[in-house]
């Protein structure tokens, strides 16, 4: 059974991701609009599109543009990010209160009070590889419903469609 790092650093997955211009500024603008929709629909203050790389998670867009702590650094090391769990488990991941979660209660974003609740769903490329996660976050506790995950998954499908228009080598 592969380790978490082996899943995240898989050459096939990263090669599939590298086929897209993930850091294109026009793509970021399009993704930001989808993040805004998700934040509004789920009534959450923060929404993001995150590409989970081998040892860090890169922020492709947030609803706040570049005005939040995620965009300031461009992402976070995987040990301080929540989205890697979405890629590793290949499934939605929700946490109502990260301060009571042994995996995340030492996370600087949690201890600093920036993030307390999280819900993320996989971004699945046409190749079947999981690029990362579309997620919402809040600095307060939040319980997520099945309807929230369905809503987020619909936005995730829209995000993947958008990313696919930014192929690194157009046919």
């Amino acid at each position: 059974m592969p380790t978490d790092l082996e899943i995240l650093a898989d050459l096939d997955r990263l090669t599939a991701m590298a086929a897209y211009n993930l850091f294109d500024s026009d793509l970021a603008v399009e993704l930001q609009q989808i993040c805004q929709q998700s934040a509004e629909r789920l009534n959450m203050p923060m929404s993001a599109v995150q590409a989970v790389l081998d040892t860090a998670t890169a922020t492709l867009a947030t609803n706040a543009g570049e005005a939040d702590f995620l965009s300031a650094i461009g992402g976070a090391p995987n040990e301080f990010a929540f989205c890697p769990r979405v890629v590793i488990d290949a499934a939605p991941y929700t946490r109502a209160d990260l301060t009571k979660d042994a995996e995340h209660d030492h996370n600087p974003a949690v201890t600093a009070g920036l993030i307390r609740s999280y819900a993320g769903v996989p971004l699945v490329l046409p190749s079947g590889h999981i690029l990362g996660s579309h997620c919402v976050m809040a600095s307060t506790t939040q319980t997520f419903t099945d309807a929230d995950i369905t809503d987020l998954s619909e936005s995730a499908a829209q995000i993947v469609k958008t990313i696919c228009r930014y192929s690194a080598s157009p046919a």
Partner: protein
Amino acid sequence: MTNDPYHMRRPDLPEAKAAVERLYGQTSRTVWQGLLAKAVLTGHETAPEAVERLARTMMADDSALALCGRSLLIRLKTHEYLLAAAAAVTKAR
């Protein structure tokens, strides 16, 4: 004051080399030597600037290597950010 804020070690060239080895396995030696040559590094440097130069050299690639380079850069920037935050907290006390 600790140099490993939140138990995060500063990324170094061995960490970068390990990422290349994970990615390319047996052929990683050639890739690593090519990267060092492009970045004009010996592989023994310890300054953060050397790690950043290597990360940016990796990012100039058009393959999975570029994503690993970006990972390295995010880790480096986060370490700098957390180090500054820890210093600010210490000073405030």
